Structure formats: structure tokens, C-alpha cells
């Protein structure tokens, strides 16, 4: 079966073998060039050389924050404490479904990246923390891990190099906040997934109090390609500040939703209209959220920018996790924002008052505006609550919850006012 969304304008590096059933098993993967990068790294490169090439490639973390991966690895202290690598496969940012696809079609691509990254930071154990809801994906990943052990790519003395690495798949149990790296570490230790105050950063004190690197699935899946082909090769795509390719999970009101991998200098408008086919026939696009529900909403006429970290930022939003949500004119913006805010209210871990109370109040006020029972003062009130939620909490979930509220009021205040003043909704049905 061909992958349903393949398009010639994509740059399919990570997604090249999506849709090929034969690529899932280890033999099929090896036939497609799999595990050659691992042989190269363990056979001819020192751990620092591996970190070096990843640093030069400019690969930035794909989990949302965009922190340079090689630089993060270089923060790992070189003492004789045990070190851990944690792969963040918790993927729960609304609108994001790319890591699932990487693991579903190319589990060995991820494992090879984990083993190489583990070697670079000299980890003794890699934990892949995967969200518990991914039942079908977990089965595939489990199968791949068994195969990698059988072939000697995991375990003791990998490929005769003297490097040992254990890898364990660890199932989450339903908590968005377990995706935040320190919440994840607490969850891995058998605690509530409550984020920790930073510093100390995971590189100093992470899993089980030991030096730990946390990386996203897509970040780690990119590693083998970079090690195999070099930093310059990787930099042929994207921009100076955002090298490489990135998967965009596209959902909402689109003719062809799905995952698309593009060079990071691809045009956002083309992604929406060309690759995804734009909104359904006869409907006009209203807004786009380019990077998961935690980034500012863009109006339909603001998306003529490239999809690099800096390109989207200059256009007023953020690349985030690459979860693109398209909304056409049939969308009630107040409802859409209410749904996003309710998500954060539900997922707030409750440690910080501003987040716990703020998300609950935002949800309550949005509910009443949507019902037609809002007051004009509710708009400044929403902004005031949002201002109190940003930059004052242990983790950025609180900031994230305020983002759709503030950006929708900036750009779609008339939709709020229609509900408040006239008890009507501007959505085109």
C-alpha cells in the first residue's frame, strides 16, 4: 500500500518508507539501509564525534521547544555516574500525530537513533516513554525492540564495540503533562507526572537523580541520517537557523489531512493549500494553528511565510511540534478556543495556583460567552487572567493555555462580540 499522502513536493527523509509494510520488520529495514549508521558510529566514530556532527547539522529538538540536539547532548556531565537517555514518545499535543506515524511505519528508524544517541552520551539505559493510548503502536515498537536485541543491536557489547545499552519501553497511562520532560521523568520513576522546578536540568539531575537527556521521537529518528550522511548533507534543506526537514501533522478542515514532510524553508501557505488541498470545496479558510494547540492562531491571510522556526515566528506564531490545525469559515472560534482551554484545564497538574485556577476560569468564561450569556467585560477579564498565567509557573502549560485565548481575541474579537452583543455566531454553516 502506498502511503496515502505522498506528494512529490515533499522531502521525504524520515517518511520515505511510510506505507511500506515490509519496512517495519528488521530485515526489511536493513534492506533499506537501516543500521548502517549505527555500524559507522560504533565502528569509526568516538562519542564526541557523533555529538559533534549532530551539533554541526544544526538539528533542533522536534518536541516543541526547538533546542539544538547536539548542544543538549554536550551538557551531559562526564563523570562515572550512570547516564540515561529518555525518548519522549508521549505525543499528546492536540493536533500532533507525527511520532505515532514514525513508530508505526519505521520503528527501527527510531531505535537506531536511540542507540546512536545513547552511544554519544554514553548512556547505560534508554527508556522510551510512550503514551499508553498508543496500543497498536506499542505492539509494533515492542516487536522491533525484540528484534534489535536478537540481532545484537541492543544489550551487551553492541556489534563488538564494547558499548552496552539496555532499552526499555515504558508505557504512560494517560496524562498530557507527562510529555513535559520533568513530568515525564517523575512518571518514569513511578510518581505523579508533576513537572519539577528547573534547575536542576535533566542533564544534571534527571531520571533517578542521574544525568539524563530527553529527546523527542522525531529528533532521535533524524540522528541516523545525519550520522550516515554528514552535517552538510543535512543542511542542504531548510535554513541556516532551521536546517533539515520536518514532519507536519495536518488536521482539521482540509481536503487531504495527514503527515507531510517538508524542507524547513517550505512555504506554509503551499503546505496548507497545495499539499493538504486547502479547506473542503466551497469553504474559505479562516485560521491556521501551525504548531499544535500551544501556539498562536494565525489568520488565513497571515500564512504566507516559510515553515522554519524563525519564519513562523516572524509571521506571529511558532513552529512548536508541527501539529497544524486548519479551520475554515464554518468554525465557531469561541467554541474552538473553549475546547482547547478545556483541554489545558483538564490536564493541568494542579501544582501552581495560576495554572490550576486560571485554566478553570478561562474555561468557565468561554463557556458562558459561547452560550450567549457573556458580558462585554469578559473580554478584558480573559486577557487579565491570561496575563497572570504566563511566565509564573513551574512549567509552560499555563502559558500555553493562555495562548489561544489571547491570540483569538487579538485576531477574532468580532466573533466574541457577536456572541456577547447579539447572541449570534459568525460561523458559516
Amino acid at each position, binding site marked *: 500500500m502506498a502511503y496515502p499522502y505522498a506528494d512529490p513536493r515533499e522531502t521525504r527523509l524520515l517518511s520515505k518508507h511510510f506505507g511500506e509494510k515490509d519496512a517495519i520488520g528488521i530485515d526489511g529495514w536493513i534492506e533499506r539501509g537501516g543500521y548502517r549508521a549505527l555500524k559507522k558510529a560504533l565502528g569509526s566514530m568516538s562519542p564526541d564525534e557523533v555529538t559533534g556532527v549532530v551539533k554541526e547539522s544544526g538539528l533542533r529538538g522536534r518536541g516543541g521547544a526547538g533546542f539544538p540536539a547536539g548542544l543538549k547532548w554536550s551538557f551531559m556531565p562526564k563523570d562515572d555516574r550512570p547516564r540515561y537517555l529518555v525518548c519522549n514518545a508521549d505525543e*499528546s499535543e*492536540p493536533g500532533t500525530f507525527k511520532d505515532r506515524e514514525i513508530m508505526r511505519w519505521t520503528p527501527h528508524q527510531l531505535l537506531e537513533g536511540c542507540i546512536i544517541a545513547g552511544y554519544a552520551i554514553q548512556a547505560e539505559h534508554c527508556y522510551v516513554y510512550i503514551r499508553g493510548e498508543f496500543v497498536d503502536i506499542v505492539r509494533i515498537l515492542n516487536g522491533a525492540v525484540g528484534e534489535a536485541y536478537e540481532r545484537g543491536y541492543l544489550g551487551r557489547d553492541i556489534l563488538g564495540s564494547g558499548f552496552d545499552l539496555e532499552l526499555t519501553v515504558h508505557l504512560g*497511562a494517560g496524562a498530557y503533562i507527562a510529555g513535559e520532560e520533568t513530568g515525564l521523568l517523575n512518571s*518514569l520513576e*513511578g510518581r505523579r507526572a508533576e513537572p519539577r522546578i528547573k534547575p536542576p536540568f535533566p542533564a544534571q539531575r534527571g531520571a533517578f537523580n542521574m544525568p539524563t537527556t530527553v529527546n523527542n521521537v522525531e529528533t532521535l529518528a533524524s540522528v541516523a541520517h545525519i550520522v550516515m550522511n554528514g552535517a552538510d548533507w543535512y543542511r542542504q534543506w531548510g535554513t541556516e537557523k532551521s536546517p533539515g526537514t520536518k514532519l507536519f501533522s495536518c488536521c482539521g478542515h482540509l481536503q487531504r489531512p495527514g*503527515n507531510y514532510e517538508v524542507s524547513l524553508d517550505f512555504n506554509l501557505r503551499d503546505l496548507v493549500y497545495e499539499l493538504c488541498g486547502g479547506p473542503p470545496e466551497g469553504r474559505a479558510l479562516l485560521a491556521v494553528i501551525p504548531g499544535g494547540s500551544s501556539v498562536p492562531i494565525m489568520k488565513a491571510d497571515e500564512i504566507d511565510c516559510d515553515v522554519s522556526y524563525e519564519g513562523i515566528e516572524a509571521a506571529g506564531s511558532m513552529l512548536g511540534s508541527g501539529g497544524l490545525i486548519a479551520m475554515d469559515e464554518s468554525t465557531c472560534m469561541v467554541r474552538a478556543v473553549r*475546547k482547547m482551554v478545556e483541554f489545558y484545564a483538564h490536564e493541568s497538574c494542579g501544582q501552581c495556583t495560576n495554572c490550576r485556577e486560571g485554566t478553570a476560569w478561562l474555561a468557565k468564561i468561554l463557556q458562558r460567552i459561547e452560550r450567549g450569556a457573556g458580558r462585554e467585560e469578559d473580554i478584558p477579564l480573559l486577557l487579565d487572567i491570561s496575563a497572570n498565567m504566563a511566565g509564573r509557573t513551574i512549567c509552560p502549560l499555563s502559558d500555553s493555555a493562555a495562548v489561544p485565548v489571547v491570540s483569538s481575541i487579538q485576531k477574532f474579537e468580532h466573533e466574541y462580540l457577536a456572541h456577547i452583543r447579539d447572541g449570534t455566531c459568525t460561523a458559516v454553516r
Partner: protein
Amino acid sequence: MSDALHPAVAGAQPSQRAEKNPEAPLFEGDYRDRFERVLSRYPNKQAALLPVLNMAQEIRGWLSPQTIARVAELLELTPAYVRSVASFYTMFSTRPVGKHVIQVCTGIGCDLCGAQAVVDKLLEATGTRIGEVSKDGKYTVVEVECLGACGFPTVVQVNDRVFENVKAEDVEGLLAELD
């Protein structure tokens, strides 16, 4: 079964099966073996808590106070601690659930594409309200946040099966497929 199960993945088995037995013994036979394999993957016992709760729920269907107490004992934790952790995570049930737990995604991606109609239809067809066990014990319908498959709305997960692109008119067929 357990021989084939590599210790690296012993704790990560999708657990929500339809066949559950609230009276089943915990961690005996094959499960004892799996329990030991799980423990071997972590530097301390507490870290095995999520996988072990997951296994307990797989065996018994939900986490009763007795189940929690037993898990606590095995991992040298207090029952209050185990309860506080279990209650943090939405996938752990501290109340009995129907044979088929039907989770409907009502996240933003699915909501834009008509998830509400799917929820309404499921509640009507099962004769339940959100979170209730149906009279015949077969169904519990719950709304969940984004299931990470937003391009294929509406996403519905029943126990350990995922259904994509579910429309309201597919609901009857989906329920029929479960039996």
C-alpha cells in the same frame, strides 16, 4: 507466552482487554514471571509502579482498593501512595468499567470534524451517560482528549483497538463489531 516476551517490553503490553476477571489472582504463573522481568528493568521498585498497575488492570479490569493494596505491598509502597499515583492518570480506572470501554476523542482536531455527533450517537446507542456502565455491563463511553491521530477524525478507541475516521453513521456497525 512469557518466554517470547522480552524483558525490555514486558511492562509495556497494551492492557485493555475485554476479558477481565476482578477475582483473578495477581501476578501468579506467567504474570509472576512478567512481574519479575519488569522489575529487572529499573533501578528501584517504585519505578515499576506504572507498568505493574497496568498489568494489574489487565488482569482484573480495574484497580479496586484490594488490588491497589496488593500492588503497594509487592513494591514496598503505601496503599495511599499508590492510590495517589493511580488517580493521576486517566487510563487507570479506580471504578468498575464496562466490558468495552469506548473512548471518543473530543480534542480540537476531532471536534472540528464532528466528534460531538459521534459521542451523542454512542450514548444513544448504548443507552448510557458519559462514564456510566450500561445496564448489560457491556459498555462505558468516555470522552478523551486528543488520541494522537487527529488527521483521521473522529478517533475512537475501544479497549486495545483503535478506529479512525468514525462518523455518527458508523456507530451502529462499530458496536456490532465489538461482540
